[in-house]
């Protein structure tokens, strides 16, 4: 092709990217930079104008305030809660998804109705998290509610056998810190394991079948095949699931906010809720403190993303790119 023409077409690459770039600058990059700036200032209160905003005498004062506070309603506790609730959801989620993946992709087990099963367990994932949280709150309601009815039924039944003297009182589940945390983790697990399972199954199906055949000829048993071949081959998808779930988990908001408003005693308050509360539910409207907390979370997420890209980078592609570069240089000469 004529060289001038190629140059001519190149400009459309820029033109067609303009809407994205403009929208990104206005709605994402500018807010990020603005949030960074607010984090170093004294901007708070509903009526304070941006023009009155001043830099803190110690620019990192907001960061110190956010990170040093302890106890109920603090960032530290919120971060602890966020991590613990994510871990308690992710470990069982990964375990169950891997187990189901192993069953479903093994043609010796030959499970029927897989399609229907996938559709059913994926269902909770598309339901509004806000609605799910309030539904579970209704299930746990006190003094009378579905879970309390089940509990009383059980205790009455065993009381008839063992006579330990059940007084018939109901239990306020949402007053128990660990039970409420566990409920948040369970809801997350329940909403996400179907998604993880579908991803992992897709990964296993994508593995070259010849590898499995070779393993079988070599006499590998089922456990060896799973741990030595299947797991290493879906490493990339496992890491993808891990990091997307971690980023999602670090931004957990809807479920703990609506299940019990972060209670009891701030035991289910998350970092996203901390940001929301400081900026919009605090009578002082601490935008600066909320911004500092946002930036702390932003940095944590960036570090995690960089680690992901480092681990996920395709070594073959890096090599290929080097070769191409060399070829291009050779062509220019």
């Amino acid at each position, binding site marked *: 092709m004529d060289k001038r023409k190629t140059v001519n*077409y*190149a400009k*459309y*690459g*820029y033109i*067609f990217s303009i809407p*994205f770039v403009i*929208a*990104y600058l206005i*709605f*994402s990059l*500018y*807010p990020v930079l*603005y*949030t960074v700036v607010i984090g170093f200032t004294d901007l708070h209160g509903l009526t304070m104008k941006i023009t009155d905003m001043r830099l803190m005498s110690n620019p990192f004062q907001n960061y110190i305030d956010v990170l040093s506070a302890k106890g109920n309603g603090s960032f530290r506790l919120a971060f602890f809660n966020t991590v613990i609730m994510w871990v308690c959801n992710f470990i069982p989620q990964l375990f169950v998804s891997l187990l*189901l993946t192993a*069953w479903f*992709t093994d043609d*010796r087990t030959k*499970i029927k109705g897989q399609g229907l099963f996938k559709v*059913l*367990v994926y*269902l*909770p994932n*598309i*339901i*509004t*998290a*806000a*609605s799910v949280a*309030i*539904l579970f*709150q209704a299930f746990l309601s006190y003094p*009378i509610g*579905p879970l309390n009815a089940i509990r009383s039924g059980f205790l009455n039944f065993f009381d008839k056998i063992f006579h330990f003297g059940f007084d018939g009182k109901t239990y306020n589940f949402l007053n128990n810190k660990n039970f409420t945390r566990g409920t948040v983790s369970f809801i997350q697990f*329940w909403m996400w394991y*179907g*998604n993880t399972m*579908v*991803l992992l199954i*897709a990964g296993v*199906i994508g593995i070259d*079948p010849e590898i*499995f*055949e070779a393993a079988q000829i070599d006499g590998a048993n089922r456990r060896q095949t799973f741990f030595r071949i299947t797991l290493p081959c879906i490493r990339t*998808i496992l890491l*993808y699931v891990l990091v*997307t779930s971690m980023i999602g988990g670090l931004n957990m*908001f*809807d479920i703990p906010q*609506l299940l019990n408003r972060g209670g009891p005693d701030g035991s289910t308050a998350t970092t996203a809720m901390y*940001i929301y509360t400081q*900026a919009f539910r605090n009578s002082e409207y601490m935008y600066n403190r909320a*911004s500092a907390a*946002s*930036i702390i*979370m*932003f940095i944590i*997420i960036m570090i995690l*993303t960089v680690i992901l890209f480092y681990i996920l980078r395709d070594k073959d592609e890096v090599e290929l790119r080097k070769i191409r570069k060399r070829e291009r240089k050779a062509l220019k000469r």
Partner: protein
Amino acid sequence: MSSKSLSKSQDSLVVKVFVYIICIVLAILSILPFWFMVVNATRTSEMILAHPISLIPSSHLGDNLKVFDDKPTFQPVTGFINSAIISVGATVLSLYFSSLTAYALTAYEWKLRDSFFKFIMAVMMIPAQCTLIGFFKMVYALHMTNNLLTLILPAIAAPATVFFMRQYLQSSLSMEIVQSARIDGAGEFRTFNSIVLPIMKPALATQAIFIYVGTWNELFRPLVILIDASKKTMPIMVSLLNGDIYRVEYGAIYLGLAITILPLIIVYLILSRYIVSGVALGAVK
């Protein structure tokens, strides 16, 4: 996955039964909460207090609906309309402009192309929560709070969608088609609209579902931006159900939840095949 020449031992009946039982229990666990919800939506608060669990629907749906006439904080119709406007708007903008950007990244050779793509990959993982305060303050200064456009326009720049669309175009767009359109005298913009977009239909359909559902379900940003009662979206309406107003109206709470959840379940069951295979498609890319 298997080749028929290899003989395979079948699992024992015990293992099979165990696997099926676990699967059936998990499947029931996915539906049962919603069934409880539907049943309790048709029962009065007194019935729910007497027997919180029932598997058989009753006939008091109308009574529960009346609660929302007397205490009209929860307005599902308003919430539905607002959520629909935001979700449709965001989905259309996101699909169109992400495809356009992806096309720019695939079909043309330009100097900054690789750096631009790297940038998109780098910012893909940044969640909106991290930029919320700056976003809110900017919107507030522009008097754009309580404006649905505030939640629609940012969809023009959706890095994750661009990434997906680019992966799709790389595998399915042949430059020969584009070349022949050029020879026929079509402009670049027209080529994109009338030739490239139709090629992308399968990818557009998959992404449309996920963007729509994601926007519909979002609570965090709408909660901050939309304060006016007439602008509230469905998830904000739902959050009002656990306020003091409906404290003892158990039947009405279940009904309100059912109103927000059942449409999603129905749409999901119709599209489920595409949704589940769409998740898998995203994984392989």
